């Protein structure tokens, strides 16, 4: 691994990695059973530098922002490196957002360049939101068919400059990227991550889960996500490891990739991990009684022998078929983005497959705590990573309080939002809004949220303010959306739900017509953003002088109601 203390920026470290590991494989890209691309570090460099040169010829320079909206593929990483090489600021966006949401964030970020894929551009270019993002001066699109209407964009593959580009150095304190942790439809939360944030996080994470030449990381989580950017790009590249991209995420091809590419690490969101568990359990249940008995006995032996720490060689021997299905070289499944249920973690650990469970926030530079597996603990999210100071603020009698973090990995602030930054980073401490406590062995246990939001099993952060738009002009006196846990704190991180609070007009009834209207609007939201229940409150909402709802005060009033009877399920 490179000694990252020697480098000032992400671009500088990556530039050195491309030299140091020149003949190692850095990228493999497969589409179903076909391998489309296999690049060594030197070949990666040869692809990226002409792009960097062409960018510089357009005037793209130090501090300029460039957005990438792409599925996981080699051109994502090549483009990102070219942007860093030019001293640019990366704005990675979720390709699963709607085109209007993407334009909204592009506009907010001030990006002058957009790199995307043709199928995505086809939707983006005809979206009404395009006209608002006048800041975008150039669009590069990959894989456009020969006769395609480019709608003002240029082909990525033909965007090459001749000659050597000039490497633009950046300082550790400069912004490396703007990562949106939420805010579509509401108040965009663009986390400004510095070069130091990434360099320090990489050192901390790889001290527990190391990469080296020969390691193969299967990149499934979207690369715009802070976790995949770190463990599916920056981490492996600074260690000379390889990243495997699949152009399809159909379960049958993902399964094939493990043995085919001898995967070492993979990151998954809890939802996918749970599905994997269900699939495996169904296969175990289908075993004939005799085989099932033997299998269960082997799992019990493995469980007993790995109690204090993982013993991968032994587990691979005992439960050979299970491990062979995962390629036989898997060291750990990294799970993140949302809370994972302990029984799912335990299920995999009992099979001899450690799940690197942790806790993090984009604002904290990805991971804050990680389970170091010594011993494995399904009931906690691990100990703080090296360099992380973690405190529990104002603990209650049971030791539970708000988790606060201070570290070189914490973002510098939210883009264009000093007010929110000041609320979130207080005296150098990041207020996570999550509740937790440390146990006697120093493991952090999460016990719910203090902030008004939910996180789905797919790792999506949903803020009530972001979905209120759909209920605008609802024929009621006033309304507000809350995370139910925010009103009635529940010491749990799962099963979180949103509720719609309605204050009806005088004499108005919550009749069939209004219920139909609420339901119809709710259906317009993506399924994971929908509210689950309605609360009727027969009093005026507390408001500020500028007539904004005082959410804290309203939540306190609602908390006096009995949640079991107050919520009418939708």
């Amino acid at each position, binding site marked *: 691994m490179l000694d990252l203390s020697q480098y000032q920026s992400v671009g500088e470290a990556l530039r050195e990695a491309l030299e140091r590991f020149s003949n190692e494989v850095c990228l493999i890209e497969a589409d179903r059973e076909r391998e489309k691309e296999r690049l060594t570090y030197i070949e990666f460099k040869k692809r990226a530098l002409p792009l960097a040169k062409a960018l510089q010829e357009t005037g793209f320079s130090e501090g300029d922002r460039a957005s990438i909206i792409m*599925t996981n593929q080699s051109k994502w990483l090549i483009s990102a490196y070219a942007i860093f090489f030019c001293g640019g600021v990366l704005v990675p966006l979720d390709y699963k957002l709607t*085109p209007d949401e993407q334009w909204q964030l592009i506009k907010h970020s001030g990006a002058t360049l957009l790199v995307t894929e043709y199928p*995505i551009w086809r939707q983006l270019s005809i979206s009404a939101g395009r006209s608002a993002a006048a800041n975008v001066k150039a669009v590069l699109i990959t894989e456009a068919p020969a006769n395609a209407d480019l709608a003002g964009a240029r082909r990525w593959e033909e965007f090459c400059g001749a000659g050597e580009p000039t490497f633009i150095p950046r300082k550790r304190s400069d912004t490396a990227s703007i990562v949106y942790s939420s805010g579509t439809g509401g108040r965009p939360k663009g986390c400004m991550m510095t070069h130091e944030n990434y360099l320090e996080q990489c050192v901390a994470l790889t001290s527990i889960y190391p990469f080296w030449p020969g390691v193969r990381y299967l990149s499934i989580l979207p690369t715009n996500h802070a976790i995949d950017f770190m463990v599916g790009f920056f981490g492996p590249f600074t260690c000379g490891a390889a990243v495997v991209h699949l*152009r399809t995420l*159909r*379960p049958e091809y993902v399964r094939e990739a493990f043995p085919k590419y001898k995967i070492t690490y993979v990151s998954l969101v809890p*939802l996918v991990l749970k599905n994997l568990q269900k699939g495996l359990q169904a296969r175990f249940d289908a075993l004939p009684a005799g085989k099932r008995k033997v299998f269960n006995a082997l799992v019990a032996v493995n469980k007993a022998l790995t109690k204090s720490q993982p013993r991968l060689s032994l587990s691979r021997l005992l439960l050979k078929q299970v491990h062979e299905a995962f390629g036989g070289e898997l060291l750990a499944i990294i799970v993140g983005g949302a809370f994972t249920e302990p029984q799912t973690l335990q299920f995999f650990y009992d099979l001899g497959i450690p799940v690197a469970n942790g806790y993090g926030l984009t604002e904290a530079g990805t991971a804050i705590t990680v389970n170091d597996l010594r011993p494995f603990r399904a009931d906690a999210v691990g100990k703080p990573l090296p360099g992380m100071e973690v405190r529990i603020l104002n603990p209650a009698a049971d030791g539970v309080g708000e988790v606060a973090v201070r570290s070189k990995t914490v973002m510098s602030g939210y883009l264009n939002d000093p007010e929110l930054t000041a609320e979130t980073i207080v005296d150098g401490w990041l207020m996570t809004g999550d509740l937790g406590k440390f146990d006697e062995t120093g493991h952090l246990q999460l016990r719910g949220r203090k902030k008004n939001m939910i996180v789905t099993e*797919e790792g999506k952060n949903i803020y009530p303010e972001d979905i209120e738009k759909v209920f605008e002009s609802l024929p009621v006196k006033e309304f507000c959306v809350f995370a139910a846990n925010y009103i009635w704190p529940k010491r749990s991180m799962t099963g979180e739900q949103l509720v719609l609070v309605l204050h009806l007009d005088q004499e108005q009834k919550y009749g069939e017509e209004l219920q139909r209207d609420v339901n119809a609007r709710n259906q317009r939201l993506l*399924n994971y953003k929908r509210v689950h229940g309605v609360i009727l409150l027969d009093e005026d909402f507390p408001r500020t002088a500028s007539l904004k709802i005082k959410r804290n005060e309203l939540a306190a009033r609602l908390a006096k109601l009995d949640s079991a009877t107050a919520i009418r399920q939708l």
Partner: protein
Amino acid sequence: MRTIEQTTQEVLDLATKHFQLPAGSLAPGDDFFKKLGIDSLQTLELLSRLENHFSIELPDYEVQGVSDFKTLAERIQSRL
């Protein structure tokens, strides 16, 4: 060769069957995420079913951002 109307109808019929819905409950303009309340994994399953039915390959990135049956049918039609 199927017409786009035929392809659209076959897509709707297949989705109706796959998600065990009453006949005629889906329309071409329906948003399948919203109407069916499905997640991204279930969408991938539906795409695999459609590929088998039409004997085509439909790359994930080709249908990226597509959320209604009509557009999905158009993408399939262009590959028939």
